[in-house]
């Protein structure tokens, strides 16, 4: 009884500490949300909602959906969102498959050059991505891939980080005996990967899928340099275009930011279990 009461106090204390922290964390999001519905002339008049005579002292009639309307009607943000969804989902699916296959091969097969290849993958991890921008641009130009979606998707299909992550996950989660048993039963090597390895790597697959999706969704530099046509630009670039050199339409910018984080926030909620289980894979022996 006293143990239960003690736990309850610990819970209460925990919530008492965490609740204000959560409120503080959510304040910028509340500001973002309210700002997205404010007209330019209202923007600096109040911190959150415009004050007035309406319910709760808020001038509800002065809130506007004009910023969102402008985004979709005049600025074709819908096309940018489609591009973001396309680039993020296709890249993350392909990268997950390629990294899983690469990591699995490095972990489970003995072949000449395996150690060297592993060191190359590890070495590639320490190369800062911005360093590759200029040579990458040149390569894409020579391959005729500038201003194409492929110019963004292909270089992101087998990141060293992912290959190494799946190599470690394969070493931990895929017992060689299981693969041996599969071989004895006549399963092909591709079958072993698809039927045995991938299901066992599922927590890591989910986490990596989400990490890659978020990474591509938020990628700004790459699309800004590779994609030149406005109709191909993803949300990150389209939103940045809303910011002028000297002038900023804050309401429009906040509406754009809101639109850009909403889908990915929904996806995170959907995949958060995978994400957490992937991150904790191997954390406990």
């Amino acid at each position, binding site marked *: 009884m006293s143990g239960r009461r003690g736990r309850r106090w610990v819970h209460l204390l925990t919530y008492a500490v965490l609740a204000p922290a959560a409120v503080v964390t959510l304040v910028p999001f509340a500001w973002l949300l309210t700002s997205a519905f404010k007209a330019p002339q209202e923007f600096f008049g109040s911190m959150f909602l415009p004050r007035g005579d309406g319910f709760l002292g808020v001038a509800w009639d002065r809130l506007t959906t004009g910023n969102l309307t402008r985004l979709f009607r005049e600025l074709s943000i819908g096309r940018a969102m489609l591009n973001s969804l396309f680039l993020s989902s296709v890249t993350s699916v392909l990268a997950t498959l390629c990294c899983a296959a690469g990591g699995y091969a490095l972990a489970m097969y003995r072949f000449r050059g395996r150690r060297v290849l592993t060191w190359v993958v590890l070495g590639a991890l320490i190369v800062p991505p911005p360093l590759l921008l200029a040579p990458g641009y040149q390569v894409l130009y020579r391959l005729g891939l500038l201003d194409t979606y492929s110019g963004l998707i292909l270089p992101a299909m087998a990141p060293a980080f992912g290959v190494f992550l799946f190599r470690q996950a394969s070493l931990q989660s895929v017992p060689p005996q299981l693969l041996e048993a599969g071989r004895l039963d006549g399963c092909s090597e591709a079958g072993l990967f698809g039927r045995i390895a991938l299901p066992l790597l599922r927590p890591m697959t989910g986490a990596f899928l989400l990490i890659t999706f978020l990474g591509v969704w938020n990628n700004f530099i790459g699309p*800004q340099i590779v994609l030149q046509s406005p109709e191909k630009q993803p949300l990150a670039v389209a939103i940045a275009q809303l910011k002028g050199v000297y002038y*900023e339409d804050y309401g429009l910018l906040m509406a754009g930011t809101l639109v850009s984080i909403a889908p990915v926030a929904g996806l995170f909620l959907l*995949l958060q279990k995978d994400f957490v289980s992937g991150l904790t894979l191997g954390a406990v022996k």
Partner: protein
Amino acid sequence: MAQDREQPIAVARAFALRWPGWLAWLSPGGWVIAAIAVGTTVVVVGGGSARPSGEVRMWTFAPPHARMYEPLLEQWASEPDGRRVDLEVLSLPALERRMLGGFLSGVPVADLIEAERRVASRAFAGPLDAVGFLDLTDRLREDGLLDAINPASFSPWTFRGRIFGLPHDVHPVMLCYRADLVEAAGIDVSTIETWDDFARVMRPLMADGDGDGEPDRYLIAFWTTFPDQLEALILQAGDGFFDEEDHLRIATPTNARVVASLAGWIAGPGRIAADVPEFNAAGNKQKIDGYVVAAIMPDWLSNIWRQQMPELAGKLKLMPLPAWEPGGRRTSVWGGTMLGIPRTAEDPDRLWELAKRLYLSPELSRALYEEGDIVTPVKANWSDPIYDRPDPYFSGQAKGRMYLDLAPQVPRRTSSPFNTMAMQRVQDALVGLVELLRDRPGTDRATLESRAMDLLRVAEADVRSRMDRNVFARGETP
């Protein structure tokens, strides 16, 4: 017959046995992403490309400019020998990277590039024959445009005597002040000729009404973190960071005097400046609240204030900048844009005609002022009555005419790609002086100017050492 019935069952059973295997590859969330990938691929690939081929491509960094150009470009496209122009608005960093990528590595760039001053100067880092823009000097001379355009507007695009861009603007600078506060205090701004007059005449506005020991407001928005305003004020005084031949010239008595004065504005016993920045919400709120009385305002900035701070309508007025000394220059310059034709562009003659139509037409000059409050550099268009129209935002002043009256006084700007670096080093010198004043508030003026000169010499030596690393810029250092 029985065999016919069993065959589909076997297929279904085989499929059912395989299905869970496929399903196990990904979690439900993973399958959602996979479904999005399939769906968006169908839409994106099926949609095809909307880009027609064989068109002229133009890059700009300013959406308002794009809106102004569109009608003229459509008109050009509809003419018998016209072509469709694909106008792309890029963020400034994207435009800079693509432009330099094209000039340095030969990848394709647009046929016309509208570049802001700092971006365009990046093209002037090498030898003359390696500048990525087409040399327009002879075309400008043949068309009589060297005299038709305000001379100072050519300077940011002039590299070793050759001009590589058609000027878009003049960007004279005035002082914007809170007329409501100033007039309520009975202050007559016509008595202000110099910055010293400004500090003296406006001082009553810095009263400590709430008794907290600090003034309720300051006289001008300026701080060590405002490099653009710093450059504008230094250019106003006359020397700038580079001379007319683009030789580095930071440590001059005039510059030392200005930097010492600015340090005094920020940290001297007669402090008048406050950290009220442009282009951000906090600064705008402070301006609306009247925390500062005045700000340095080029023509284009007046448009930004109008859009971002409609609350200030009718409360503001403009006046020429106070001079650094009696009889001195009453304006400066801030910003600048040009239209350039890359060397790689096909049919430069045709593009030159288009460039002239875009930048020199009376319609565009008018639109430039109506939409962006920017006065044209084309002298023939200065007689347009639109510039005499009273502007309610600025208490009914004929703002356009006031800016144009100052246009001939606008100082020249350098085209050196090292200007930004010089500006940053001078900013460091200003910070050093401000620290000195904070440590030793009683520092006299002569000591302050002497210390300013020392710090500017350090700044100049640093920039010179960087310039010397560039074999093509070495000749620029005396």
